[in-house]
């Protein structure tokens, strides 16, 4: 078994996470990510016949909320927590065409 992921696999993950990585980081992550994957593979060996186990360790139903409005933040509070804003809008660098 390989001790590392391929460069392409790591670059793909980096692309999905929108992060730039250097050549030396690439090499490091090839090994580290593989170690994480191996750990996950170990967990996958556990036999579970109940699909529920994968989501929550209890079967109690989720608590539903009544459709009643509560306290909201003011636009000022919202923009105060943003690095940049334009009027009441939060401002970010332009990114087009990658909406879900």
């Amino acid at each position, binding site marked *: 078994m390989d001790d590392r992921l391929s460069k392409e696999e790591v670059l*793909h993950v980096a692309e*999905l*996470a*929108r992060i730039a990585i250097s050549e030396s980081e690439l090499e490091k992550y090839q090994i580290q990510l593989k170690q994480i994957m191996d750990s996950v593979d170990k967990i996958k060996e556990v036999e579970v016949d109940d699909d*529920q186990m*994968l*989501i*929550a360790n*209890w*079967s*109690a*139903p*989720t*608590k*539903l*909320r*009544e*459709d*009643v*409005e*509560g*306290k*909201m*933040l*003011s*636009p000022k509070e*919202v*923009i105060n*927590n943003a690095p940049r804003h*334009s*009027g*009441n*809008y*939060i*401002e*970010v*660098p*332009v*990114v*087009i*065409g*990658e*909406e*879900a």
Partner: protein
Amino acid sequence: MSKYIPTIGVEVHVELKTNTKIFSNSINGYGEMANSLTNVIDLGYPGTLPTLNKEVLNLAIKAATVLNCKIRREMHFDRKNYFYPDNPKNYQITQSRTPIGYDGYVEVEVNGVKKKIEIEEMHIEEDTCKSTHRGTKTLLDFNRAGVPLIEIVTKPCMNSGEEAKAYLEKLRELLFYTDVSDCKIEEGSMRADANVSIRKNESDPFGTKAEIKNIGSITNVAISINKEIERQTKIYDSGETFKPQTRRYDDKLGDTVLMRVKETGNDYRYFPEPDIPFVYVTDEMIENVVKTIPMLPDERRKVYVEKGVSEVNANKLVQNRALSDYFNELLNENTNLKIASNLLLGDISGYLNKNEKTITETTLTKERFLELINRMEDNTLTSKNLKDILDKILEETVSIEEIIKTSGIENITDDSAIRDVVKSVIAENPGSVEDYKAGHDRAIKYLMGQVMKASKGSANPKIAMDILVEELQ
């Protein structure tokens, strides 16, 4: 149309008409000041936890029911992971593996042919924030973040733009009538994407797919799909191929334009949302929701026609839900529904449009409307005279009889007397009636003379003439 068979599937996002958002108790609203309808959950702040809104579940059950879907009784949510500023959590909470509704259908009719449009699945998810691109900046408004959505996905079972259009019209009608959504495409509360491919034979695998995104109106759905079929046909005809791609419809161009080519499939790395335990749908929940479903549009059209309303009027009534709801109140009354539908869609609609009112904002109670219908039916009020007193009928609360008496419209109450005279003149002069029907204008003048003579000159000539023409029809 061509030697290719088009295959179309449609995905529709619909915003649910709740008071609050899907996972937080901030207001679900539209058109408010930017970032004024949010809280820490909508903004995806660390440490916050989502709690599912009960009403979202109810509306989703309702939608699934009217779309003839099977309803899943045990479900969970999933995280769809992607990095984009419209979602600072870096994942959208959706249902990937356990959609609440599946295996449904709606029936549509295109050019007289009925077809079942099959629904693959219907799931619940959260809307993202609205981003507006301005030069080198993108502006974010989180009022839309966390607005509850249902996404309804059809099977690739349609073959033309017209079928897709009919499906969307039917979908909108059903969800609007059941108060699941206000379905305003122009405000983005209903958004449609279409997947289009073509192939030569039924036995061939599906052709390369183009996805047309965010089409701005139902009419444009039909146009853009047909344009896309045309484009793909030309490509294959010239022996070329194309890559899977995303396109959008350009209203000004009247055609689809390329947004991006999909080199690889999406990689959203779905996994179960650990913050929301299982959701169970009980029989009781479904029963309570089903109770709130009103008579649906197709049923209304059927009942109206059975009760004597013309098909044209039945359709027009259903297109206006306020009028249709009002009309439904009359269904069990012993009255002339044909006249009722003519009145509502004619003069009364004219008044409502002019005054920007809905029928329930007028003073026309059911009792007064029934009185009005009776007056019209026994001709003690003519269409012409109705126009003169319509404003009073719709703005005052006194009886129709009182309005007629006090309105000072002469001869109104004599109409039935004039009509009696007219009827006897017609009965006594079959030769002139025949002449009139054969197109001899002079005959009506003769008949009119006889009416005036018989009434000893007391009939209002204008009204008498109207009645005479009416009776001769």
